[in-house]
Structures are given as C-alpha cells and as structure tokens.
C-alpha cells in the first residue's frame, strides 16, 4: 500500500510528530479538573436532588403510597363509603337503599326542585316496605303535595303470599287536570321555587282509583 517514496516522508513525519509530542507535558492536575467537571455536570443535571438521595427515596415511597390510596378510594365507591361512615352498609351491593339517602330525597322529603314532578311514573323513595297484619306488604312513602300516591302492583305468586320485590316503588300521580309541573332539578342544588313545607307522609294504604302507574322495573 505504502510506496517506498512515501516511507521516507512517512519516517520523517513520524519522527517529527513524536518529537513534537514529546515536548508536550500535560499539567498534573488533569484528573482533579476532570473530577470537578464531572461533579459540576452532575449537579447541573440533578440539582439539589443529587445531594439528598438519602431522604428522597423514603419521601418518594410515602408519596407513592398516598397516591395509591387516593386512587383506590376514588375508584372503589364501597371502600369510600366504608372510610366515610366507618362500616359497610348492609345493602352496599346494590345501592338500592342508599341511593335514596344520598341523592337528597331521603326520608320522603320532596325534591328541592319543586313540589311536583312532571313524570307520573317518577318514583319517590319508599321509606319502608313491611308486611302488614293482613299479609300484605305496605309501602310507606310520600308524594309531593297535590299528587296522589299509587301503590305498586304486587306480584302474586301462586303458592305464596303477595311478594313485593325489593325494587318496589311508590309512584306519584298528578291529579287530573292538575297544575303545571316543573322538572326537578338534578342534584338538589336549585333552591325550591315554592316555599311549601314538605308534605306529611301519606296514609299507609294509599288508594288509587285510576290505573296505577308502576315503575318500569316492576313486572306485572
């Protein structure tokens, strides 16, 4: 590859380069300068966290545990209920009894949106369903003023007592030719338009002379 002519100049070049390089003496504190530059770069990259790794790790672990707890509570409503009330509600599986207590219509109070509901099939919460002496189940509940309570249609079974399922609801029906109704506001945040006191609970055995309107989830 290398011609003899180049070898001569190559040797001259090699001697000259080595002689030139031999004259170079690096300073003795090169290693210290390198380490100082490494430390500067490390501090510039990580800042104060590079000096505090001893306390940073436990802090990060605690923060991670807190995040996990918050996520678990927000994702699981039953667990959140347990944390808030101290115990699991007995019907926490279906939230049928709890929903009335938590949506602002507890214990038969009328919704704050107004005294009446536009939908005849709207279902105020039954306060209790208990068997009466005659073997019938009595549903107690309240309706807004001006509406009549309609008993739910019970499902007769051929060989047993009348059974009212857990999903039985008290329905309210507006009187014929009744006044205008306003839809209830959701969430109960709207102040009531009328300052009427909540109606007293209706009779235990409300009668209905019109066709009963049952809840959609009630089987005929």
């Amino acid at each position, binding site marked *: *590859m290398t011609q003899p*002519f*180049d070898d001569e*100049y*190559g040797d*001259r*070049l*090699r*001697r*000259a*380069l*080595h*002689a*030139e*390089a*031999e004259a*170079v003496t*690096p*300073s003795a504190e*090169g*290693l210290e*300068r*390198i*380490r100082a*530059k*490494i430390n500067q*770069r490390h501090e510039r990259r990580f800042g104060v966290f590079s000096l505090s790794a001893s306390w940073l790790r436990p802090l990060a672990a605690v923060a991670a545990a807190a995040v996990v707890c918050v996520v678990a509570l927000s994702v699981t409503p039953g667990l959140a209920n347990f944390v808030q009330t101290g115990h699991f509600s007995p019907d926490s599986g279906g939230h049928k009894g709890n929903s009335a207590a938590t949506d602002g219509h507890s214990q038969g109070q009328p919704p704050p949106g107004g005294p009446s509901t536009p939908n005849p099939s709207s279902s105020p919460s039954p306060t209790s369903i208990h068997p009466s002496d005659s073997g019938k189940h009595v549903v107690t509940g309240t309706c807004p003023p001006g509406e009549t309570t309609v008993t739910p249609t019970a499902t007769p079974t051929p060989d047993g007592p009348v059974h009212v399922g857990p999903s039985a609801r008290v329905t309210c029906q507006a009187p014929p030719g009744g006044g205008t109704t306003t839809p209830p506001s959701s969430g109960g945040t709207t102040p009531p338009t009328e300052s009427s006191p909540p109606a007293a609970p209706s009779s235990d055995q409300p009668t209905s002379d019109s066709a009963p309107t049952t809840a959609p989830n009630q089987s005929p």
Partner: protein
Amino acid sequence: MAVAWDADQAVTALYSAHYRSLVRLATLLVRDVATAEEVVQDAFVAMHGAWRRLREPDKALSYLRQSVVNRSRSVLRHRAVVEKYAPKGLPDAPSAENGAIVELERSAVVKALGALPNRQREALVLRYYGDLSEAEIAKTMGISRGAVKSHTARGMAALRSVLEQQ
C-alpha cells in the same frame, strides 16, 4: 482486560494509562497544549457519562480517541471563524532552538502538517503518531477505510510537495 469498573474507577484508570498520549494527540491536532488538555478533559467527562454504555476499557479508549478527534475538529472550526474576523498579528518569531537542523526539519514538517486540510492532518497524525490501523483510523474519524486511504495519500503528497520546495 475484563475489569468490572464503575465510571469513577474507569476515569482514574484510563487517565493514568492514556491521558498523556491523548493530550499529545490533541496537541498535534489543535496545535495548542492548553486547548488540547481541555479537549481531552471534556472527552473524559463525556466518557464518564457514557460509561454505562461502554463498560469495557477497549471501547472506552476508542470512545476517548474518537471524542478527542471530534472535539479537536470543533475547536479548529471555532478557531477558523475567530481568526477570520480577528485582526492579523505579526508572525511568530523563530525561537533559539530552531537553530539545530533536526529542529528545523521538525518544525518544517509540523508547519507543513498544519497547513494541510483537517481530515488529511487527522489521518496522518493518527497513523504516524497514534500508530493506528486503517480500520481504527476509520472508526475514530467516522469515515470509511477507503476515505482513510484517500486522505492519507493526499496528505502525504501535499506534505512531500511542501517539504521538497524547502
């Protein structure tokens, strides 16, 4: 040598083994000892940061050499821009040592080498001072082996023509 070093140990070991030669190599490229030391120190810092990737001393030495060449290029590029806009000074006066013939020849060769294009000078320095093979020069310069041959041949031809005129 298969040694399980961490980055700090690698810096210390490679410094004691190769710092001087790397500074000399950089001096031949940038023609300034202080700048050459800066270049080599920065190469060591970069190697420390890349040690997780390198792991092996041979790879680290190759990385250092490559880093020195690249940083020397950057220095020369920056210097060329500075000199382009800087006021022209007087040429350096010859020192007393230049009286000897050897010194004259040496300075003539080094001066002719400094007049070469950067790539040709890099190839000649890596070959005739670093004693690297063509493959190592190609890897260090980041070019092909054919390009190394081309740069070396052209550099030697230019050097010969300059030295024959003197």
